[in-house]
Each structure stands twice: as structure tokens, then as C-alpha cells.
């Protein structure tokens, strides 16, 4: 067997080249893996359009609030389909005003139901409940904030809602991009 001979340059070069050939495929994969974040960063600041969700005359004054689907283009990676349900909102009419809530619970993102008898919104997952004005019920409600109110515009008989989703679990609503 030959004597082990030290060669600093050979050791460093072997290490470096090994690192490069190993890191390169990993990095090229990682970039694609992180695509959702990288794409979101470049798309930030997009305006959310107002979408028609109901007709004013069809909404009864006062409670119970009605749950209506929000219809828009549904984008799922390579699929884009027009006029698909992309979410749901609760509408509550008060005179000529309409309040709209995103139906998603601000706690962990479940779909909130409406409990007609108790006149409140009730989340089926972790027992958060909300008054008709969207306020949390009970000091120990798991939800960190009230229900997410959406901007409403009324044009003639059409009720339009600026639909957006929010991150659950935050004290202040933060828009999902």
C-alpha cells in the first residue's frame, strides 16, 4: 500500500468539486420546489376585483344571513375554468346596506356554518362562534379575530363583493395572495 500523502490542493479541490456537483442538482430542484413562494413575491399587490354575488331585492332584510357562492375563474395549476365556485360569503342585509363575511373561519380555516336557532355563526371544528355582526362570542373563543368582513358595492340591484381569502390564526386580517 502506498503511504498516505497529504496534498492540500487535491483535498480542497476534491471537496469543492464534490460540493458543486452535489449542490447543483439539489439547487436546481429547490428553485422549482420554491416556485409558489417566488411566484407569489412577484405577483404581490394584485387588485382583487368586485364580483357579483346576489341581487339586492332577493335579499331579505335582517337575519338570517344567506350563504352564497362566489363565482369566478378557478385556477388550479394548469387548469383554468370559468364560472366556478371559488369560495362562499355570508350576506346580511340591513336596509339598503349589505354586510358580507368570508365564510372561512379566522381560527383554522374551516367552513363556518350558521346556527339559525342561536342566531350566530358556528364553526364546526374548534367551536368558535360569532355574532351576526361578526364579533367573536365568549372571551375564550379560539378565533384570534372577528369574522373577515369583505368590501361590498351595490350597483343598481347587484350586490358586488371584493372577494379575498385571509390567513387564519392572525390577529389582524392578512390577505392571502
Amino acid at each position, binding site marked *: 500500500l502506498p503511504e498516505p500523502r497529504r496534498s492540500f490542493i487535491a483535498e480542497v479541490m476534491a471537496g469543492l468539486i464534490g460540493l458543486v456537483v452535489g449542490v447543483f442538482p439539489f439547487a436546481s430542484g429547490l428553485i422549482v420546489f420554491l416556485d*409558489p*413562494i417566488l411566484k407569489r413575491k412577484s405577483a404581490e399587490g394584485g387588485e382583487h376585483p368586485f364580483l357579483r354575488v346576489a341581487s339586492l331585492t332577493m335579499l331579505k332584510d335582517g337575519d338570517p344571513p344567506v350563504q352564497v357562492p362566489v363565482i369566478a375563474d378557478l385556477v388550479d395549476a394548469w387548469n383554468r375554468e370559468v364560472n366556478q365556485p371559488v369560495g362562499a360569503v355570508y350576506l346580511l342585509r340591513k336596509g339598503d346596506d349589505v354586510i358580507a363575511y368570508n365564510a372561512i373561519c379566522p381560527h383554522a380555516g374551516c367552513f363556518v356554518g350558521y346556527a339559525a*336557532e342561536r342566531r350566530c355563526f358556528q364553526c364546526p371544528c374548534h367551536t368558535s362562534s360569532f355574532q351576526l355582526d361578526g364579533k367573536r362570542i365568549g372571551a375564550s373563543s379560539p378565533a384570534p379575530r372577528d369574522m373577515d368582513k369583505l368590501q361590498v358595492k351595490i350597483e343598481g340591484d347587484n350586490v358586488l363583493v371584493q372577494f379575498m381569502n385571509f390567513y387564519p390564526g392572525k390577529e389582524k386580517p392578512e390577505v*392571502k395572495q
Partner: protein
Amino acid sequence: MSKAFFDWLDDRTGYRDWLHDALYENIPSGARFRYVTGSMLVFAFVVQAITGLFLWMAYSPSSQTAYESVWWIQYRMTGGWLLRGIHHFMAQAMVIVLGLHLLQVVVDGAYRKPREINYWLGLILMQIVMGLGLTGYLLPWDQKGYWATNVATNLATLVPGVGKELQQVAVGGSEYGHHTLTRFFALHAGVLPALLLVFLGLHIAVFRKHGITAHITPNRPDEMFWPKQVLFDAIACLVLLAVVLGFVIHWDIGGLFSAGGLPEHSRGAELGAPSDPSEQYSAARPEWYFLFLFQLLKYFPGSTEIWGAIIIPGLVMGALFFMPIMGRNAMGHRMNVAFLVLLLVGAVGLTIAALVEDHFEVVARQLSFSDANKVKWSKEIKNSQEFRSAQHEAERNAERMRVLINRRIPNDKGELGESMDIQKLGAVYLLRNDPLTQGPKLFGRHCASCHDYRPDVEGYEGPIFQTLQPPKVDASGNVLRDDKGNVQYDEFKTGAPNLFGFGSRKWIEKMLDHASWQRLEYGPPTPSSDPVIAANPEHPDNHKRPVIADYFGATKHRENSAGMENFLKENNLTGDVKRQIASALAAQSVRRLQRGETKLDEQDVAAGIELIKNKCLDCHRFGEDGSLGVAPDLTGYGSYEWMLGMVSDPTHERFYRSQDDNDRMPSFAKDLEKPQNNNVSVRELSLIVDWLRGDYYLDEDGHRVLPHDEETARRTVEDSRRLTLPKREIIGKPASQ
């Protein structure tokens, strides 16, 4: 000969050394059953790898195909349910054995010097197994997995700093879709198993370096791993497999040996209805071994959520991590054991709490709650009722899904074709476009505030809608009472015909009776089912009274000197005339017979057509005769086309003509050019109409029909608005011909 071969093989590979190393490990004081848990875990992993690889060969991760491919495995592939069942239940068994293994390691102090690193490797393995469970739950892409996993990825956003990025990377975007499945599948079948293999290799290598943490019994001789301990391990694995197989067939041993074979509901793992992000799902729960985490979240209000979701689980993992350091002395070791036992008790307690809350309704019934207790726990009982009814609905939808996928339509000769299976749009479209599933929901949302759907037949099991009239209330929100203490009601303002059986002979026959045309009665109010409200007699919810107006008693058509009401009053039609006219009109609806309705009598139809021509054409049009302009067209009365035309725009010339004559019936889809301006899409109206008419698939003769598709529905609405149409013929022969 064979010895020469094995000598040659050993010379070339050195396999005897490997085998010797693997099998001849000394076990101080000999083999014991208590040493089997590690081998059981290896066995469980191997089972998961093998069954998983075969499942992989039939699974297709995308939001259009994931559910569909799992459905195919479960119901159509030979032995598919068994394969899926083993994978599903072995995963759960693995979690239990893992818990035992950890408990054993800590109780025996096997984490102590020099085995600290191996203990940590074990903790990493535990995390990987949990990760496999979490990612696997989503892959069938049914409602349950979809919504439960949604909560888990949402919680990832709570991680400080990089939470949102973490969630985006896991989900492959901000919302669930194709890339969520591709990523979860890559994790579940690639990354995590590879990591598990690496860490398992290290775990076993380090274990062999230090040997087993033996229980020494004096005078009990040492033994080698082979053969006795291997036999013990094999027996334990056999028992594990048998128990798992027991769960796979839901312990339905009788069913296994019954004539028809194992019944469908005892076959392997559950598969719900396909995931639908637009469909509220109130029964979302994680797999049982994550229920304690789910329950923990309920106790952390508001912005403290991060404690339940991340900090406490993190601290617990941290505490487990530090056990080898804590346990250096006897005191520390005892504390470790106490901590772990407490942890397990806590997890079991939380799991039970979660189950009790979800099934509180049953608990209250079993404990025969007093009225006071029912009031006290009303919210919990109500929540549990909602959870359980959502669970039942989920089961119904899953069952309906199977009927729809297996639907077979007869050809012209009446022979059943092949089952129609799933189209490229995916299984969720079958359910979304199923009148039986969607009709009642849509009716409840859009029609039931005025129309009843109230059966008048015995033994009806299905949705019922009954309009209720609220009482007048005073300024404080209590009911308004008169001097005698009677609750006051407004003159009733809503109440349109009961649509149960609309278009049938019976329905029309009754309408032609003056008394039932005008009938308007109120049923006794029913107290609220919420005991808190029911306890307060002044609460308006306890005084909502049912309105019984089968036809036009609560509309402005109730009294009309120039209309139908006057006609009925003055003519007082005989029973025969009513039956004949009703038969003729019912014939126009070409409606499927539902619930005990009998076939129309041809002579009645013929006579009825004559009668209509004699009596009705002053106001109505009927085929080529009569004219529009005064009252609704009777051509095609009650048919799909007529009903769709009516609900999409009752103010149209063919129906009530103007807002004046139409009494508050909304035009749900007047604008065909700009469908986004309609309150209800034509597709949804078609589902309601198909449901009312009974045009939905059932697996019995005469019921094998497909719902109308969206394009047909749109064209039908267009047709319904043409005043003259080449083919608008009367169905049935008039008597004179």
C-alpha cells in the same frame, strides 16, 4: 454440490459474515417477548412500503384523478379494498406500537448513556411516521381528508417568520389543488420513506453497537438473536398482522363466511365523497391519533392559538429530546417516566374529550340529562347534533357517489348498458350535478322561504320544507300579545304553492277544487328545539307557526274576480271533470311517477283534453288552440321545459306575463346573455326542476335517467321563451278523434 456453490458465493460476496453479524447477536439472559416492539415496527414499515408501492401503481395524484383512482382501487380492482385496508390500518397500528416502543425505552432507561444518540434517532423516526400519517390522510382527496388537512396546513402559517412561506411550499400555492397532491404524494411516497430508511438504518446500526438493553435474570442463560428471539419477533408480527386484518374486515368474521361474501361496508378503509372546496363540510376531523392535537387547539383562545398549535407540541418534543440529559440520575429518570406517563394520559384524555364533544348528543341521551342540564349544555348538544348530522350526510354522499358512478342507462331495446363510470371532469361533477343531492339544498336556499315541500303521503322519507310564520315582536324583541294574551301575527305575506307532487294528477285535481285553492290555515306553533330559547315563553322563536296553504291561499290569486279563482267558484267542477282535466294536464308534464302515483288513465286523458278545449281556452293556450295574454300557457304544463321557463322568468309572456300578474315569484334567471346577473344559474334551476320532477338516477326500473346537462338546460330556457314553436304538441289523443 450445494456446499460447493455456497462456498463459492461466500468467497465472492462474504455473505456468511453478514448473516452471522445479523443473526448472532448475544442477548444477555436470553430471548424475551418484551423485546419484540422494535422488530414489529420494522415489520410494519415493510408492510407499508410493500402495500404502498402497489397502491402507487394504481394511484394518480391530481385533483381530477386522485379520488377517482382511489375509488377505482377500492371498488373495482381485484383485492383493491384489501390492499388499501391493510395500508390504512397498519399505519394506525404502527402509531400504537411506536407509542409502546417509546414507553418501553423510557421506562427501561434505554435512552441513557451510551444510547442517547439512538434515542434521538428514534424521536426523529417518530416525527417521520407522524408525517407519513398526515400526508397520507390527504391523498384519497375525499371531503374528510381535504378539510382536515386544510386545517393542518393552515396552522403552519402560525410558525413565526416563515409560516406563510411554509404553508405555500407545502400546499404548492395558496389554495389546495393539483400541486398540493403532487407535493404530498412526493413527501408520502418518496421523501419521508427515504428519510425513514436512512434513519432506521442508523437506528439499527447504533442499536447493534450497544446491544439490547437487557433485563437480566440471574442464572437465565444468554442466547443468540437467532433463532428464539427471531421466532418471538415473528409471532408478534403475525399477531400484529392478524389484528390489522381483523380491522380491515371490521371484525365481520360472519360476513366473511356468508354466502354473498364480505359485505361492502366491512371492506377495508372508508372513502368519503370527493372533496369539494365549495361544499361546506362540518365533519372534518383529523385521524384519531391526531385528535388530541385537534382538541388542544380549542383551549387556546384568540392569539394564544400558537401555544396550542406549535409552542406546546414543540415544548413537549423538546422535553422528550432532553430526557437522556435529565435522566442521568435516578431522580431524573423517575421524572422522565412520570412525565411520559402524564403525557400519554393527557393525550388519551384529550382524545376522549374530543370524542365526547363530537358525540355529546349521545352522551346526554345515555346519561338521561335532566331538563336543567339540557339547557346548561344546549350549545354542546347542538354542536354535536350538527357534527353527527354532517357525518351522516357525508356517508349518504359517499353512498350516492357509488350509485352515480355505477349508473347504467337502458338502451332503446331496454337493455342496460355498461356502467357509465366517471367522466374526465371528475367524480365531484357527478355529485355537483345530481338533482337528488343538490335539489333539496338548492330548494332550501332559493325556494323554501315561500314554497313548501310537504308530503301528503304515508311513509315518505326525505327532505321536508315547511314555511313558518314568525310572530310580531315588540321593541324589546319579545312576542307581541293582545289583551287576552294571544300572540299576534302579521297578515301573512309569504306562502306559495306546496310543490310536493307538482304536475301530478293528484296535485292538479286538488288545485281545481275551490276550497283547496283558497285554503289558508295555520298549524300550532312548535317551540324552539333549543332548550335555552324554549325556556322563555316570550321568545319569538317559540311562536313560529306553520302555514298550510297548498295552493294560492296566501297569494294574491286567492281571490280574483277575473281569474281562475272565480272560474272555480262559479263552475264548481264535478269530481269526474276535475280528474279528467287533471289527467290531461298531468299527461303534458311527462313526469316520472313518484311515490305510489298511478299511471294515467288514457280515457281520462282523452276526455280531459276535450274538457280543456271547451272550458279553458278563453284564458289559456293549449297547443294550437286558445291564446296567450291572459293566463299561463297550458302547453307542456309541468314539463321540464315549462317549469324551467316558469322559474327562470315567470314574468314572461307565456307565464304570468307581467310583474302585475305575477305575485312575487322572482325571475331567477332572466338574462341568458349575461348569466352572471342571474340570481340562480340555469344549471342550478335545472337541478331543482329535475329534483321536483323526480328526474334523477335511482338504481331501479323506470328510474335510470340522467339529469339534464347545463347546455340542454340553457337551450330549454331559450325554447321556453319562444312564443311559437314548430313542435309544441299536446300529449294524448283528444276524445273526438
